[in-house]
């Protein structure tokens, strides 16, 4: 068992950083919030309704980015992105710009299997620039991303929060570009009692 008595309300405009040592249940918490795992006890509510009761509506409002980027090696960067966008009902006409945001210009037509792990993560993150889902749940979005990329992502998070979205993320880095008073922190620690 990892955590108990966790009662959080996350509202529009919040940036929430989940902290804790390895194995403290950060990923588990995010997966529960996304509806991928079921908590042993307790509920996740979206607009006062349990998410299992309104799965499709909740997922329309959700963008989740996990440890695995969900990029297929057999498809090009652009095809991967447009499939991801289309699956969530998003506009696929500006994939060029989105890939430019994550510094992947010139790689649009390369098969993803020829790209590096970091580039796979960038392909997946490119969705952030089109997403209209208000709730973003991002598990270690900065892993394998360079400094410039991190700065650009942080800027995107701020924009998103200002537009009334919310971002829930885990990271071991400090958020540099976002002033610390804007970031809510949830700290998890091992405990058994």
């Amino acid at each position, binding site marked *: *068992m*990892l*955590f*108990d*008595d*966790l*009662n*959080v*309300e*996350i509202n*529009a405009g919040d940036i929430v950083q989940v902290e804790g040592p390895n194995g403290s*249940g950060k990923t588990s918490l995010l997966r*529960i*919030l*996304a*509806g*991928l*795992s*079921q*908590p*042993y*006890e*307790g*509920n*996740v*509510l*979206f*607009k*006062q309704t349990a998410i299992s009761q309104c799965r*499709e509506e909740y997922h*329309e409002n959700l963008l*989740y980015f996990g*440890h*695995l*980027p*969900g*990029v*297929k*090696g*057999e*498809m090009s960067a652009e*095809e991967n992105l447009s*499939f991801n966008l289309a*699956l969530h*009902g*998003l506009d696929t006409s500006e994939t060029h710009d989105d890939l430019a945001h994550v510094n992947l210009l010139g790689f649009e037509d390369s*098969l993803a299997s020829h790209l590096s792990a970091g580039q796979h993560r960038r392909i997946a993150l490119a969705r952030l620039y089109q997403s*209209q889902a*208000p*709730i973003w749940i991002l598990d270690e979005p900065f892993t394998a991303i360079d400094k410039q990329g991190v700065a650009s992502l942080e800027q995107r998070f701020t924009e998103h929060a200002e*537009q*009334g979205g*919310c971002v829930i993320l885990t990271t071991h880095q400090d958020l540099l570009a976002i002033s610390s008073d804007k970031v809510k*922190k*949830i*700290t*998890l*620690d091992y*405990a058994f*009692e």
Partner: protein
Amino acid sequence: MTIKSELTEQAETSLESSEKITMTHSQMKSLSYRDAFFLVLKRDITIALRHRDDIINPLLFFIIVVTLFPLGIGPEANTLSQIAPGIIWVAALLATLLSLDRLFKSDYNDGSLEQMLLSPHPIFLLVLAKVVAHWLITGLPLIFIAPLLAVLLHLNEQSYGALILTLLLGTPVLSLLGAVGVALTVGIKKGGVLLSLLVLPLYIPVLIFATSAIDTASIGLPYSGQLAIIAALFFGSLTLAPFAVGAALKVSTN
């Protein structure tokens, strides 16, 4: 804010979004069921066509297994034609089983399965698209190659129609039932052997009715009864299996 962690895992969390977001959201176009279905279907077929081994290997397996039987039993035409329906169908079962792994495994490993489960579409729809793609990639080629193998096994000439029809109705059942098995074992590290233990017993009715239809055809009797039963199995699994697969995938990705 610090959370004190205690004995049980309990998360009581609510996510609220302001009206402003709800407005931007309503401008978003939503995919129709048909669009979502064809989107996934097209993606899976594209991937398979770029990764042709996945299509060709089960097919080669099918051919090799069938050619082993005359070598093991002897070239006597009468014996072979008697057991031909059984051999072809058992080989088809095994070839399908071999190809099932790719249905969800690679998607599970690279995280795209997770993303699909998080998409705002009913899961059974996406599952159905993936199973249809799987059948088009592995089931359909079997049907094309089967008559050739039937020649090698001296299958009675009257039985060819029955062979094709049973394969046409029966292989989708194999894909659908198999999908339930893969969905249950996709999260398990060495799920391959387990998969055959789970799935093969479920294939028995298809095997029995299909081979009997071919046998019946070889003596010139009508086999529409068996065909009707396979059709019933097909429609039954078509309606029920996608839901079972959806539930199983949720368990496996948990």
